[in-house]
């Protein structure tokens, strides 16, 4: 079972989801997967290209906001969509992530939404009973 779910009643025209994780690494990975799944059916993507992302921000919310924006950036600037994501965050809130996927191919990929932006609308990152939880609305 994926550790994210799409939410109704948060946003009428856009895409809202909640993700959870036992730690920050898992939280970031699951939030990223929610976005990746909404832009294409993951089974149709092959992990041919690897992209590394390095970010730093003392505010954990801002770090997640910036990280999720990277997925949108690669989609527009390099026409890359991803299948897998691995995140490692240090205690000083430095993030190193590895995304694997390939160039968009209309014949091969079953595509979904073209994600425009991560919004700050009802954006939340918080500690939950067991680990971490976030709520994100993506403009589409």
């Amino acid at each position, binding site marked *: 079972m994926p550790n994210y779910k*799409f*939410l*109704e*009643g948060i*946003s*009428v*025209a*856009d*895409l809202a989801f909640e993700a959870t994780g036992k730690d920050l690494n898992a939280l970031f990975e699951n939030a990223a997967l929610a976005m990746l799944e909404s*832009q*294409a059916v993951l089974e149709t993507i092959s992990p041919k290209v690897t992209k590394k992302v390095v970010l730093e921000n003392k505010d954990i919310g801002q770090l997640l906001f910036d990280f999720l*924006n990277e997925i*949108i*950036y690669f*989609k*527009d*600037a390099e*026409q*890359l*969509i991803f299948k897998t994501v691995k995140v490692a965050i240090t205690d000083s809130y430095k993030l190193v992530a590895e995304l694997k996927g390939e160039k*968009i191919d*209309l014949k091969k990929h079953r*595509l*979904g*939404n*073209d994600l*425009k*932006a*991560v*919004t*700050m*609308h*009802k*954006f939340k990152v918080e500690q939950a009973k067991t680990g971490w939880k976030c709520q994100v*609305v993506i*403009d*589409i």
Partner: protein
Amino acid sequence: MSNGTGEQVRSAGREAAQKVKENVYDIPTSFKSGMNVPGRIFASQKLMDSMDEQVFDQLTNVACLPGIVKFAHCMPDAHSGYGFPIGGVAAFDPDKNGVISPGGVGFDINCGMRLITTTLAEKDVKPKIRELIDTLFNRVPAGVGCKGFLKLNAGQFKDVIQAGSKWCVEQGYGWDEDLERTEDSGCISWANPDKVSDRAIQRGITQLGTLGSGNHYLEVQVAQDIFDEKIAKKFGITSNDQICVMVHCGSRGFGHQVATDYLKIALAKMKDYGITVRDPELSCAPFNSKEGQDYFAAMACAANAAFVNRQVILHRIRETFQKVFNTPADDLGMHLVYDVAHNIAKVEEHKVDGKKKKLIVHRKGATRCFGPGRKELAPMYRDIGQPVILGGSMETGSYLLLGTEKALEETWGSTAHGSGRTMSRTKAKHMVRGEDLQKAMEKKGIYVRTVSYSGLAEEAGFAYKPISEVVDVMHKLGISKKIVGLRPIGNVKG
């Protein structure tokens, strides 16, 4: 807002809305602390009832922003967005610490509509609709991360976002007359490419001439109801089986990144200006501040990119019709009626308490609808008022309207922008499969192509308000007049 059982709980904002007259409701400043002006909603009872509850809270949050003048307005097609409601119009006085807000424009800067006429009749096009839509589908890229045919380097892209549509005409991607038939002649003069990030340019550089996705589309339509023959004729529509083409899209990844960049800047700098807002998406800066001016100049670049995007698409539409009907585009009468922006902020002169005043007007999911006499309009429309284009859902049809003087008095010269969603994307997708919807639409005489079947399902007609109800509210109030109703027969869905 839900009470946990799935039922909608009526929000306090909705309860506070008082009917002023038919189709007009006000939420008084006493409703929420910090409201500088009342909220004003234009809607029929039916549209009020179908508005989602968050609209009322978002509208009254806008009413709290510094320097807001008269009302926070809400159009009849409104639904909740983030920060501002979609369908929100607000004007700010720069002399009274009035602000500019990236969230008040939205991520898709200068998302807008374009309508093109032809001399073809429905009977000429129906037999070729598959070939026509299939060719348009191939010539106007749509969907996730789609690329256009223009190959530009960063320097050339900067020239494009400064020059706007006239760059297209110079390159042969348009006719001279297209320029005066575009809001701001397709070029906002205060655009400054130095104010946009490299990241924004990288996101947008390959995307000119593409539709994107979501609710964006290119539609082949038939004029079906002509409400005002004289004005319709001035707009180029003379018979009720005439084929037109409508385009809905915006500034693509470039504009989205400009908005994201300045949302972050405004959020970080607001406290320096002593501004607090009720929602981070309402982050703003005084118009007369460095950040306010920088955003205004960057937003103009994105607006110009959107004009170019739609102009390049028009070029491809003309090429396609030329090929499919084996007739030159000018012989097919493929004139642009108008190009309107519905996500934008502008400095405009309006009357406030009888005196002329320069205001920063934000239209987020709202369309400018200037009446006669405004200097911003090209000579061909200055005596009658501007054409206003409202796009409906894929299944229900669209409208061509006329701007009025009354709009200048009531809404800073603004009207609705479409039909407005009532149902979330997730829910719409649960209710219908894209493949089934495509077949059902074809049975109804609408041939649709898409790169995303899940995206198609999200845009099903039942997810939207009835557009005729939206149009009628503004018509009855005299804000925008019904001129022509248009019915879809073919659609390229973004």
